[in-house]
């Protein structure tokens, strides 16, 4: 054993040769993230009468490599909210483990009847993302925040630039192109939300996950689905606001009733000649 703790546990120089540290001193300055590495694709969400449904598949890609097939990209934050993340997986994990989990723990430790709900968490995430983009060190994600807030369903989006917007039907990444048009057919505007049942909403989102799997090369046929439902808030009077929020999870859902018939008609790719 030598006297230098920093050398403990390292391969011995006399046996293995000195450690080649050349890669540690780069002639280049430190770089912030300029592109994501391990990524998740779309998150899809839709409001319905009494709640929101949100879904994301379980794949984390490394470029075109399907690197991890058991990644959970939806996560419950607090009691009223589910956050879905597309984009860089490590940034998503940082967001949850270093920011949101401690935030919720701090909030709940106060034990004063106040809780962070969907709109609060959404504002917090938006500010974090915006502040990071202003430091030229973005968290490379597009987030959907779904939840229940003040007697209404809540759904909004925030991305790595700090861009924020809300709509009754939202999808990130490839889903913005493929899923949103399908969802808008079910739910063109906020007024339509009250005519959509929970079952209809789930069916619409499941259909989107299928279409995305057909066409998005970075997607997977296994996904998670969270259904957030709430019952109205009684007018605040004595004591705490009373609302009952339940979050139902469906994990490791496999795509059902796939039909690849359409693939027969595709020409111009692969081995077929005519």
């Amino acid at each position, binding site marked *: 054993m030598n006297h230098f703790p920093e050398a403990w546990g390292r391969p011995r120089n006399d046996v293995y040769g000195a450690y080649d540290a050349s890669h540690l001193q780069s002639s280049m300055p430190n770089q*912030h*993230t*300029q*592109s*994501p*590495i391990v*990524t998740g694709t779309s998150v899809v969400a839709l409001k319905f009468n009494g709640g929101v449904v949100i879904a994301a598949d379980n794949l984390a*890609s490394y*470029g*075109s490599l399907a690197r991890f097939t058991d990644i959970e990209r939806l996560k419950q934050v607090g009691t009223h909210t589910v956050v879905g993340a*597309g*984009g860089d997986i490590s940034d998503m994990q940082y967001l949850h483990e270093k920011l949101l989990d401690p935030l919720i723990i701090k909030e709940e430790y106060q034990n004063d009847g106040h809780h962070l709900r969907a709109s609060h968490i959404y504002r917090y995430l938006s500010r974090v993302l*915006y502040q990071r*983009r*202003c430091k*030229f060190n*973005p968290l*490379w994600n*597009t987030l959907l925040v779904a939840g229940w807030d003040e007697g209404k369903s809540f759904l909004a*989006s925030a991305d*790595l*630039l*700090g*861009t*924020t*917007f*809300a*709509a009754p039907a939202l999808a990130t*990444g*490839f889903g*913005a*192109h493929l899923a*949103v048009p399908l969802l808008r057919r079910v739910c063109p*505007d*906020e007024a339509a939300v009250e005519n959509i049942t929970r079952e209809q909403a789930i069916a619409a989102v499941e259909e989107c996950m299928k279409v995305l799997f057909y066409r998005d090369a970075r997607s997977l046929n296994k996904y998670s689905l969270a259904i957030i439902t709430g019952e109205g808030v009684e007018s605040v009077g004595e004591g705490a606001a009373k609302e009952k929020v339940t979050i139902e999870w469906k994990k490791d859902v496999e795509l059902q009733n796939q039909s690849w018939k359409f693939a027969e008609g595709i020409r111009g790719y692969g081995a077929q000649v005519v």
Partner: protein
Amino acid sequence: MSLPSMQPLGYDQSYSFHTPTSKASGEYTQHRFNPYTDNGGTIIGITGEDFVVLAGDTRHTSGYNINSRTEKKVYRLGEDNSLVLATVGFGADSKDVAETMMRAVNDFKFNHNLKNMTVSAAAQYLSTVLYGNRFFPKYANCILAGLDKDGKARLYSYDSVGSYSKEGESRASAGSASSLIVPFLDNQVEFKNQFVPSSKGQEERPVVPLDPVTVVKLVKDAFTSATERHIEVGDGLQIITVTKDGVSEEIIDLKKD
């Protein structure tokens, strides 16, 4: 490590703001995080003598995508004053500027014995905020309006680094369809290129202040026309009217295609 193929769709393909990946030097392609985007939309402000109208469409876009059909661009800077701010450009910067202004107006109120900031003070402050970000500009084009202490309508418009005219303006437009709208307002608010019929094009039509009904009509016409000709404009139209009796908001539909 950089794998160009992993660039998520939608970030570098904003067509109206396309920046080609630059060759920094030699053979390496430098990938750079672009902190800006354009979220489309247009705003208009028109003053009368003792009222002002600020309006903006409610479409929020990223490239060819419509993110939302219901994102408002016109903000009241407090519940008990006449200050109204419309911002357009990069959505995140726009909202940040609006929030900064709301906060400043609120701070001012509580620090000055519940007296509200005057519109000229708010105008100067907004310029200071924008210029304060001179070297990392807020990509937000602003129009600020309100009534001054005599009840006269004031309207100021800014570029993204805060330059504005202290005298104010009678009308302004900013955003993606402003180039379509400005000439229309020149003609309809300032009566540019209009002549007294009997003068054979010799005598200019005298400029008179407009009434609120006409102004709101002009705003609606401007936006329905802009919606026809510009893909980033449409969905809804938020119109905020400030008069001595208070501030009212109206939201009407625009074409959603």
